[in-house]
């Protein structure tokens, strides 16, 4: 129990830190990496629960998260590339075109 609880605490920490990073950091790439961190945190909690309850559904979801994360990165980075080509900066505060 203690082990599981610790792991859950850890996953909370990872997730929150990732979200905080999305909020605080300026660089777009670093933001993407923080999102990866969030996903990792979630994965950890899923594995913990799978371990705790003995059911394989947690693992299935872990796999699906892997896939999604991969696909996401594969597309997000080219998008960032294109945007950077436009604005010539990685600073997210410059990207306020959807303002209004």
């Amino acid at each position, binding site marked *: 129990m203690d082990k599981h609880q610790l792991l859950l605490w850890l996953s909370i920490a990872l997730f929150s830190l990732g*979200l*905080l990073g999305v*909020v605080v950091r300026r660089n777009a790439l670093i933001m993407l990496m923080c999102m990866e961190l969030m996903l990792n945190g979630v994965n950890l909690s899923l594995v913990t629960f799978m371990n705790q309850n003995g059911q394989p559904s947690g693992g299935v979801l872990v796999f699906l998260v892997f896939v999604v994360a991969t696909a996401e990165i594969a597309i997000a980075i080219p998008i960032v590339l294109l945007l950077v080509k436009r604005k010539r900066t990685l600073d*997210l505060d410059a990207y306020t*075109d*959807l*303002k209004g």
Partner: protein
Amino acid sequence: MGFFGAHGLLVIALLPLIGFLINGVFGTALGGTKLGKSLVTAVACGFPLAAFVLTVRIFFSLQALDYAPIVEHGYRWALIDGHTFDISFYFDRLSAVMTLIVTGVGSAIHIYSTGYMKDDKSYARFMAYLNLFLFFMLLLVLGRSMLVLFVGWEGVGLASYLLIGFWFEDAANAAAGKKAFIVNRIGDAGFLLGMFLLYQAFGTLDMDVINAAFTSATVPIVSATLVGLLLFVGATGKSAQIPLYVWLPDAMAGPTPVSALIHAATMVTAGVYLVARMSGVFAHAPEASHVIAIIGVATAFFAATIALVQTDIKKVLAYSTVSQLGFMFLALGVGAYGVAIFHVVTHAFFKACLFLGAGSVIHALSGEQDIRKMGGLARKIPVTFGTFFVATAAIAGIPPLAGFYSKDEILWYAFASPSGGSPILWGVAALTALMTAFYMFRLLWLVFFGASRVDHHVEHHIHESPLSMTSVLVVLAILSAGGGALGLAHFLEPQLALPAVPEELHHLEGTLVIVSVVLAFAGALGAWFVFGGPASRAEGLQRTFAAPHRLLSGKYFVDELYAMLFAKPLAWISENVLLKVGDRKILDGTLNGIGSLGQFASGVLGKVQNGSVHLYALFVMVGIVSALLWSWTRG
């Protein structure tokens, strides 16, 4: 006559309405052709005549019932909170008299109008409006409940407005129509208040029930004086008494048949009818009756003085009508209700005859209405002259014509009635009768006698009116002559009791009759003297009394006074307070303010979407926290 038997009164009222609908909807389409005009005429005159015939039949059945009132339940109008409002009709002696006059004289004037208005381009509209008026007037006199009466009351006001402003392309005519309607409305406020009080006290507006309640109850639930005064306010508006008479002279802007029908014979008598009908209330309201008598005689005197110097033939007759209505209210004020109604009837005969005769004169002179431009017409339009002469004599009170009987009874009761009669009232009334004779004969002389002052190009076209017009004139003249025989005051006595004259005054009756006859002849002779002789006498008189003459010609400047006291301040308030402040600032400001508020709020909220990803992510965080917190509070 199964259906008619059960709903005869309703049918009487509805017949002219049907005529109005047919003519109103189809009339203009038919109007152009000769055949079309005949159709319109047939409809317009046929329905009122049918109503008259039906009225006569029902009158005979009333007679057979020994004059027990016929009550017809028509239709339940509304049921609110346990209070019912019905449309029902009532036929007793008083209603019979009024209905016969309305349908009889009304039909006659319809026939006259076919001749008078036949060249007018809105002929069908005119006849339709006349029918509409008749419908509402019948509702007024046949209604059992004050509610039905009030519907008729307002309806005749509407018809009056439509007909006064009939030739509405001229703005002055439209303004006259508006004035009539608005002044009437002021009176109606009083009427409504009276009705509210009565309803609150008795829970019903049926007039016979209210009358019975007043006569039988020992302690009145509501002040009869207050109710009486309020109802009288309504009557002053409709029947042109002081202070609400100012619309009647302006109403002469309408076609002459309108003046005859509405402003002489029927509508203006609605106020008299109202007071007579509610005699139960007024009999128990001595202060209100005093007020009525005083205002009646004051109006009579006042209007007669103005009529002395008027130069438009119709205006003379208009002020004469106001004056005669004053006489009727004088009679009502001293408790002689039946006599007042008698005078209504005789007045309907001779005043309608006078107005229609004036219309005939105007028709003959191709539209001239100024009596200074008339004269010497007696030989040229003899039928008109003859009937006009008879009617003039009637109104002056020359025996044995109808006007003598009714006016004399009014003077008698003004003197001798125990409920308010006094020598002062009699004196003023007698003086007014003298003036009445004087100005009516003045009119006669100036129009029909003497050297012709008519414009030359008009003179060539002088012609007698067509048969449709002259026949009606003759009939009305005969009625004016012989109408006195009806003795209506005594006919109505079982229903409307005549005041019981104290014994000691009875011997004076004969004396007073003689005095009134003398006054009538004196007035006639005086007029002959002043106006029948060379023109210099009249002019000399005018120069001597220049200042009073100016005052009277200006109608005592009452219209100007009203404008200054009421119209201008109201207009100022409307413009400055209500328009600038109320409408623009408050209403528009509020609506615009709400719009601006919306815009402002959206501007504020819009700042959320500033395009910054960081902010959005922060919101995600905040969302998670709040969702969890919220789920905790839900347990």
